[in-house]
């Protein structure tokens, strides 16, 4: 069986990565069909999405119980950039994560770790005019999963971003520096190069850290631009007839 990865970027994970078992029955076996970027691809819902409240970005309090979430409080911030280094303003950034004990608030998470009544585990914000986002949350715990014997996911925070177009949609995960579980994690290791894996590992940033309050981590995210799709295949129809 051959591993296939996106021809858009050789550093992206392949659809089929057998060490991550769920890919075996879910990865498409046919190559994707390359299409040109039409108005459908250069547009996207990002600019249409609004309705974010400031309190949505603080996961230590957005459960709304009046009591803070338990665990190691952290600040996660960074810039959302396009391939040319331009900050992407008004980008919806959504995050979700396990609590400090490694448990998600989700009916299918049966990990025998306590739920924190004061931790929802979901947050969102819009980037500012420089493309900067910022969350206050707690450091998520590692947790076991059934992928292989003694499998534990390294601590991570899920990220969803819209960017300026349909082509810049991204769902990814942020990992923490120095986590010994990372070399054992098939999801992180599905990324084929060490350099690209490192791009998902946040940096501890002492300038973000707040005294007697929270540790700071910086995680910048680079999104594809709508112009990035090459269209190399001959068009079978007379698309350019005038």
């Amino acid at each position, binding site marked *: 069986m051959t591993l296939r990865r996106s021809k858009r970027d050789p550093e992206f994970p392949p659809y089929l990565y057998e060490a991550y078992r769920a890919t075996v029955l*879910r990865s498409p076996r*046919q190559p994707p069909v390359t299409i040109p970027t039409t108005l*459908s691809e250069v547009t996207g819902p990002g600019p249409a999405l609004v309705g974010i409240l400031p309190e949505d970005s603080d996961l230590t309090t957005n459960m709304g119980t009046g009591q803070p979430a338990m665990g190691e409080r952290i600040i996660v911030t960074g810039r959302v*950039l396009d391939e040319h280094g331009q900050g992407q303003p008004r980008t919806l950034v959504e995050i979700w994560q396990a609590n400090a004990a490694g448990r998600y608030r989700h009916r299918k998470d049966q990990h025998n770790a306590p739920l924190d009544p004061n931790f929802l585990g979901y947050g969102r914000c819009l980037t500012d005019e420089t493309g900067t986002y910022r969350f206050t949350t707690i450091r998520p715990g590692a947790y076991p999963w059934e992928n292989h014997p003694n499998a534990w996911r390294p601590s991570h925070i899920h990220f969803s971003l819209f960017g300026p177009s349909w082509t810049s949609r991204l769902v990814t995960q942020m990992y923490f520096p120095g986590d010994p579980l990372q070399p054992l994690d098939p999801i992180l290791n599905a990324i084929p190069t060490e350099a690209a894996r490192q791009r998902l590992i946040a940096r501890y940033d002492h300038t973000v850290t707040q005294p007697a309050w929270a540790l700071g981590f910086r995680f910048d995210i680079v999104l594809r631009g709508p112009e990035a799709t090459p269209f190399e295949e001959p068009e079978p129809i007379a698309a350019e007839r005038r």
Partner: protein
Amino acid sequence: MKTVALALTPPQTIGPFFHGLVRARLNVLVSPQTLGDRIRIDGVVLDGKRDPVSDAMVEIWQANAAGRYRHPADTREVPLDPAFTGFGRAATDDEGRFWFETIRPGRVPFTGRIEQAPHINVMVFARGLLHHLCTRLYFPDDPLTEADPVLNLVPASRRGTLIAARVPSAAVPSYRFDIILQGEGETVFFEV
């Protein structure tokens, strides 16, 4: 040729525990004020064994009834509908099912004077998908569908996976659009 200055952030799976992203009614794109013909879309996401994918998230993005996207890149003299964003999001249930209530989109341009057939852009996220999948839904009862320039980039034998099936005798025009991730009848996915 474009110079790529920064390396892209790689994608990762959405995992099984994303459901807090799917707030109530995000799969209903219409309000009483929305212009256009109401439609309903029902589908199921299936894996290579034809088992339902119960932890998928499906997103759609479409033009309004007049064929205008709510986006600054769409600068045409076509009216925006203040009661329509064009974005929807749904999670599959235990049987792998999802549904949307929306409007039939209008036509949007391809190149030159060529128009695309009305279509809905679809993305699929799920545990086991290290990168989301992009596809399109076309309408079987639209006169432009057969000539659509994007649909015609797809091998003829596979085009049918992108054309929804009209569900007869539904109160609102309803379409069935199943997404098969792998194997026989595998949905066509696009590199966009």
